């Protein structure tokens, strides 16, 4: 078992191009779903969740490429992205709660004062 782990960590196998394509397809699909959701929905929380989805799509692509190139920088970067996303989620949800209290609505259209 230990040997197996050591062997795996010491000599990781490169991902094949076909497998990479699968990952990237999933990533692209997630991103597009997030984007479409962001553009079509008016609920602030849903819009926020859509941005998170786009975020994770990008993260998935990073991890996939990292594995494909056998370069761990990408995975390291994803760890940071997740951390930032967590902090951002806390902040953004607090903002959404605050905005809701002000207007009694979660609609993004309730806020449009800042215009030319």
């Amino acid at each position, binding site marked *: 078992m230990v040997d197996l782990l050591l062997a795996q960590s010491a000599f990781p196998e490169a991902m094949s191009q076909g497998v990479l394509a699968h990952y990237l397809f999933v990533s692209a699909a997630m991103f597009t779903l997030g984007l479409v959701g962001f*553009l079509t929905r008016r609920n602030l929380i849903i819009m926020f969740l859509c941005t998170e989805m786009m975020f994770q799509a990008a993260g998935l692509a990073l991890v996939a490429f990292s594995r494909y190139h056998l370069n761990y920088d990408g995975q390291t970067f994803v760890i940071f992205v997740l951390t930032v996303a967590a902090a951002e989620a806390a902040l953004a949800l607090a903002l959404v709660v605050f905005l809701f209290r002000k207007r009694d609505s979660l609609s*993004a*259209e309730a*806020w*449009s*004062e*800042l*215009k*030319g």
Partner: protein
Amino acid sequence: MSMMPALTTLLAAADGPFIAGGTAPAWVGLMAGLPLLGAALCVVCACLNVKSKAPGYLTVGLLAGGFVTALAAFMGGSDSDSYGVATIFRWIHASIGAGSEASITANIGYYMDGLSMLWMLFVTGLATVIGLYSTEYVEHDKGLGYCRFFFAFNLFVFSMSSLVMADNLLLLFLGWEGVGLCSYLLIGYFYKKPEAVAAAKKAFIMNRIGDLGLLMAIGATFVVFGTIEFRPLFEFIRDGVDANGNAIAHTWVVVVIPLLFTAGAFGKSAQIFLYTWLPDAMEGPTPVSALIHAATMVTAGVYLVARMYPLYAADEAHIALSVIAWSGAITAFWAAAIAFAQYDIKRIMGYSTISQLGYMFAGLGVMTTTGAVFHVLTHAFFKATLFLCCGAVMHGFAGQLDMRKLSGVGSIAGFKITAIAMLIGCLNLAGLAGTAGYFSKDMILAEAFVTPGEVIFLPWAVGLLMLLTAFMTAYYTFRVFFRVFVGPVKYEAGDDHHGDAEEEHAAEDAHGHGHDDHGFHPHAPRFAMNAAIALLAIGSIAAIPLYFINAEDHGWAGSMVHESTAAFAAPEVHHDDHGEHGEPHAMLSADVVPVSLGAAPEGDGEAAHHGDNLGLGLDPHKAMYVVSGIIGVFGIGLAAFFHGPKGLGGLFIGNRTDTGSPRMDAVARYFGPLPRLAERKFMIDELYDTIIVKPLLVFSHIFHAFDKLVIDGLVDLFGSLPRWLGSLLRPSQDGMLHGYATGMVAGSAVLLLLVVLVALL
């Protein structure tokens, strides 16, 4: 004692300028420092809202301190070694250009020699006396106005001291501008009166024209001689070389630079073309007219030329001196002609100041710096006296200055001192034999006839013009005296009180007299004004003995001038002493008449100078005593005949019984439009208005329109362009989050598409 220099000094003086070599004590700076302190204290008084006469008395005290300092410096300067430079502190010392040897030095330093000493004596002395007079004259304005008056008064004395005592041209220029500023402030003292404000502006602007010349002269001096400090500068000029060791004779240096200095002097001293500001300056309070526009500031031009005299004399063709002589004589004549027909007694005094300044310049031009300087001195006293007397009349008759509405003022109780002082002043101005004004004027007149034509362009014509002017002066001076001060007592009160209508009521309530003639009684000068008038009148008499001190050197003024840079071409030593100094006439018979006056190191030029040009078999000075004495008496007699009242007051030849003047009116008809033209000042103001002011106004309107349309339009265009673009783009910012998001996505998509396309192609 500097009053009694040894004869050897005099002879040495004729060789070149006296350059003060010693170190003057630093306390001479008090002459400038005390008035500056006074100005500061007046500001403090204004801040504390002092309502008493304290600022006035403070000023008089400090100015008296300045006078005492001047006296102490004069007494202390017992031998010429102690004349010199007192450096108070280092002001400017800068290298010109990187690594070059050239540098400019200008210190707050005072150059004490005979010339600056003489000037400081009468500036501080007159300022003290006139300050005393002012304490009463502007009393109706106690409070801020009082503080303002004495602030400017002090500042003026400070600036004048800086001008006179400066040891470099830059400090001189600062003082020059300072007196101009104070003149502006004081002419415009009655700032609610539009004429006063206009006069102040006119004085300031016309002075700028001359100041440009002075500034250019200073610049040119620095370029040529590499220094603006007097001592090194005059050493260069004495040696006749510039900073590079090239000879300056026969170059532009000795023509252009003196002419530029002359332009500055003409502006300040209201000479030819630039005189029109001075009569208007009479709108200022009378003590100001007396101090600034008669006795001190306007003589700054004479001082400047006298100070820079070595440079003038270095030109063997004497072009600048000819210009000065002729300008002076023409100005003297012209101003006297205008004074003939004026009715405002203060303006007459203003024109006579211009005229007398013309004499001084003519004196400088015909190479008697001593005569010019002595005339400055005597004129300062008698003209200040005359102005203060006019001021007393103006003060007493609620601003009345029209001689047609005043008569017999001298017979009114309380005006005795004024009338006597006025008589003394008039006698001096008219040049009655024996008065100080007579002696000083004669010095100039006689010199005009003895200066050879090779030196100055037609000097005898200058002399004749001045003789004619002397006659006119005697007439117009006594025209004032006979009409205003003697004869039947008749007067009309003026319609304002020192031109300040609002203050007036308070003042008049306090004195218990009103506007109306029936309720009006003249308000005689009290102690301060009487004391000042009496002191100045005594001063005008006391100036007579000065002529006889050191008679062989043309009086005290001569000995002072000999110990200054103005001594360069003051070859008076040989004048009245045909036997003592060899054979001055021998040179005349020589074929070649030396013309290199003063500049000639051998000093042989002087001899050429003293012929019997009058052809009367008399020494020119003695002959001139007789001629101008007769002319003076004749002028006075003519004035008495036309304007004098019956009886003693009109010397028994007048017949005036009312304030009018029937005899003159009858005669004036024969002169056609001339008297009316003279009364309107020969329309010179109108001429300037037409040929200079109006075209300038037209041009400025054109330029204004250009500025408005083109320059402003261009700037506005650049200003409005972003605004216009912004208004185009602004709708895109609609505040809708989804709009922004869609825009961003679309933008990214386009970019992506481009990338893909580029990659494919």
